[in-house]
């Protein structure tokens, strides 16, 4: 509930990370001061303003604008700070209004990071004032509160700062106005606002190349934004500098004078994005402290997704640099050693040995240097992973993340789903969550085939089949859990009943649409039903008449899990399955094959396109996935439920309960 404050009224703040949105009809300056218990600002370094926009726990925009966002982290405030004052001022110089009485009443709102309003205040009754204290955030018995102040100053910032006890009030006010004037000179005219919806569509259409693209099975889901230079300059400003929250192009906060928000409260995509959490300024010479969500995006969900993909790219590239250097060092050493051999002079005495020694030492030095660079980057990525992992929402989190214990059936489908972890042999300590976009763009193939696993242990065929089915159950449970109630329907084909034991959690909790289909008749029945569904939806889509579907038509996403393929499949069923794999994803019918390709060898090359169209996952660590940038072979490990954990059961029970209610 938003509290609409009147002058002097206060309101408790339950969150530490806040955003303060300011809107006024004309460009204004926003600043903030930090004061002590007596309400005094001790020196100019306690003032965040356009010329010095960042203080611990506080960030203000760099220039004057009609709409502002200030980021506040109350937990990061120094202990000596007892009050934070949010100030607004009119820019001096030509063209602007000369007094607040000439502009629409400024509106300020305190919101959480997700954009929900906590309190708002419209500053009315201003006349000749040119600066105003809008809000005060203050400590009261260990907790923070916000108060609507609305104290104006006709003498502008100089008078305001003097009132707050700042010794160099006039100089600082002058400096702020200079910084603003410079900012205005720098800034270019704002482009026409992009609509939020336009942006959304572009994301949805994120590039999805065909399955045979470059032989890289994982290299197709490059998200928007991660290729855009994140690795470019981590030491420079791009990483440490927060996005300017005052960007005037954002479809913005409620307009002045009217705190009514016409946006649908749950339509997040049309609400302006809260600013990303910003990394605190780094100490000189040290990398910035990593922060979860430090990436672009319209929601925390999207930012974390982009951040994970950014880490993925960074690790791929820094490892590429290392491997390239090591390769070069080796080829150079080989060449030098060869030269020693072919040089007749070196046959005399110890010259050859010395030359060989030197070649080896040069190799060693270069490799050491490369390793140092890699270690430096890996350490930073590991630190980032340490803050990102705990911040992940269930869809992105591993099963051992505590977030699953607080699981609730979501209202919206997330952007992506974690299917497992990826790592490289040089730096096995950094695990990148493998996130794929939802709705699934390709079917999944959990390979139950016999393969030498990366860790050297060989599993017998029976074990592998069971483990593949367990992995499949974990993926299915996760897919069910991250979709809103009734929006994801799962069918299982288990012709010989060989997966029955592993399927128990899904069957008993009642989350499946129907009991697993057995026998040839069961196979034919389920395939027939889904094929018909694909046909219907396709016809409706092609005819442009989605509303022509039969009444009561279930519009949820469908997943068909097939165990033991091709057991129980006749030629007709195989054809139907291929049809589903080709045409299904576009109309929300997805496929998960739990299969050993060898079992279907009798079909020969006929089925090759089927296997190629699926994203291959393994029940044991296996290095078959390539990244889209460099093409390293990454070791994939499935996201499995920790042994003995009840989390899967609890999550499935909630999903089942929500399904029952939904009907």
């Amino acid at each position, binding site marked *: 509930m938003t509290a609409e404050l009147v002058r002097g009224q206060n309101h408790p703040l339950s969150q530490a990370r806040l955003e303060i949105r300011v809107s006024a009809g004309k460009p204004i300056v926003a600043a903030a001061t930090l004061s002590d218990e007596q309400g005094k600002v001790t020196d100019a370094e306690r003032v965040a303003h356009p010329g010095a926009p960042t203080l611990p726990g506080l960030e203000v925009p760099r220039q004057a604008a009609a709409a502002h966002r200030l980021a506040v982290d109350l937990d990061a405030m120094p202990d000596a700070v007892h009050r934070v004052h949010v100030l607004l001022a009119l820019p001096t110089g030509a063209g602007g209004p000369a007094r607040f009485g000439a502009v629409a009443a400024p509106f300020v709102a305190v919101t959480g990071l997700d954009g929900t309003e906590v309190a708002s205040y419209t500053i009315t009754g201003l006349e000749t004032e040119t600066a105003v204290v809008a809000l005060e955030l203050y400590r009261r018995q260990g907790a923070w509160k916000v108060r609507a102040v609305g104290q104006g100053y006709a003498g502008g910032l100089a008078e305001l700062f003097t009132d707050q006890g700042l010794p160099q009030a006039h100089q600082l006010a002058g400096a702020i106005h200079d910084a603003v004037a410079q900012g205005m000179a720098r800034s270019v005219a704002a482009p026409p606002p992009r609509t939020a919806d336009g942006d959304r569509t572009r994301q949805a259409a994120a590039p999805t190349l065909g399955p045979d693209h470059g032989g890289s099975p994982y290299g197709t889901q490059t998200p928007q934004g991660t290729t855009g230079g994140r690795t*470019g*300059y981590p*030491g*420079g400003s791009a990483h440490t500098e927060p996005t300017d929250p005052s960007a005037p192009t954002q479809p913005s906060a409620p307009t002045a004078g009217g705190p009514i928000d016409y946006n649908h409260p749950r339509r997040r995509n049309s609400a302006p994005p809260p600013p990303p959490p910003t990394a605190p300024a780094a100490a000189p010479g040290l990398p910035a402290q990593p922060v979860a969500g430090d990436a672009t995006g319209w929601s925390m969900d999207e930012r974390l997704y982009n951040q994970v993909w950014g880490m993925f*790219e960074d690790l791929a590239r820094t490892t590429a640099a290392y491997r*390239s250097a090591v390769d070069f060092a080796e080829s*150079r050493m080989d060449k030098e050693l060869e030269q020693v051999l072919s040089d007749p002079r070196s046959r005399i005495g110890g010259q050859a040995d010395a030359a060989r020694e030197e070649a080896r030492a040069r190799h060693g030095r270069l490799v050491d240097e490369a390793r140092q660079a890699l270690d430096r980057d890996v350490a930073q990525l590991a630190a980032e992973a340490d803050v990102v992992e705990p911040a992940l929402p269930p869809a992105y989190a591993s099963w051992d993340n505590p977030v699953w214990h607080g699981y609730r059936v979501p209202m919206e489908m997330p952007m992506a789903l974690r299917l497992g972890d990826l790592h490289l042999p040089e730096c096995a300590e950094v695990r990148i969550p493998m996130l794929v976009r939802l709705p699934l763009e390709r079917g999944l193939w959990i390979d139950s085939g016999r393969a030498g696993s990366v860790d050297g242990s060989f599993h017998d065929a029976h074990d592998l089949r069971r483990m593949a089915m367990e992995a499949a159950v974990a993926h299915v449970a996760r897919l069910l859990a991250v979709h809103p109630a009734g929006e994801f329907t799962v069918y299982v084909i288990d012709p010989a009943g060989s997966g029955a034991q592993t399927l128990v959690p899904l069957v008993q909790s009642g989350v499946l649409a129907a009991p697993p289909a057995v026998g040839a008749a069961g196979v034919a029945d389920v395939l027939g039903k889904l094929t018909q569904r694909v046909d219907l939806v396709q016809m409706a889509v092609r005819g442009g008449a989605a509303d022509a579907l039969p009444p009561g038509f279930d519009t949820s996403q469908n997943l068909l899990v097939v165990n033991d393929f091709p057991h129980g499949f006749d030629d007709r069923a195989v054809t139907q399955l291929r049809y589903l794999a080709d045409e299904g994803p576009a109309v929300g019918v997805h496929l998960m094959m739990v299969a050993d390709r060898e079992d279907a060898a009798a079909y020969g090359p006929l089925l090759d396109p089927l296997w190629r169209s699926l994203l291959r996952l393994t029940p044991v660590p296996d290095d078959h996935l390539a990244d889209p940038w*460099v093409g390293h072979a990454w070791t994939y490990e499935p996201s499995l439920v920790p042994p003995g954990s009840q989390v899967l059961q609890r999550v499935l029970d909630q999903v089942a309960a929500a399904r029952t209610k939904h009907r």
Partner: protein
Amino acid sequence: MTKGQAISLQKNDGGSLTAVRMGLGWQAAPRRGLFGSRTREIDLDASAVLFADKQPVDVVFFRHLVSDDGSVRHTGDNLVGGVGQGGDDEAILVDLQRLPVHIDQIVFTVNSFTGQTFQEVQNAFCRLVDETNGQELARYTLAGGGAYTAQIMAKVHRAGTGWSMTALGTPANGRTFQDLMPSVLPLL
């Protein structure tokens, strides 16, 4: 800068350069009367070749926009040029701090992909900029440089602990950087 002149990329204040940008700009061919679509577009391409001990290791050009290690990035191919008023139409950004340890030279080249010689291109230039503060380190005017279709512009190479840049300005002919490799190697 004049041809062959070397400047150290150590800054005056003692700090060394961390990021440089090679910018390339030229004026688009004018529209030709009624049949505007038959205007012969001018496509110049900027490339950067990364060398380790005189062996090419990686190339950043319009078909490979980011070096595998991520330290060199091309901002994207421009096929027609711009307004010709000094803005960069193509740029290559180099993060010197992130270059792999074995890379010791980077050579920047410009090619005319559509085959016009620089004499036929209006207001063509290429320049090197300190990306951290926007200061221009070197600038060449390509137009009027003679009947060539390519130029090997400059090399940035390791010198001591920092980097140093040598202006090359060597004219050459070729459609892409591959055609220039024989001319580049003697300059390393």
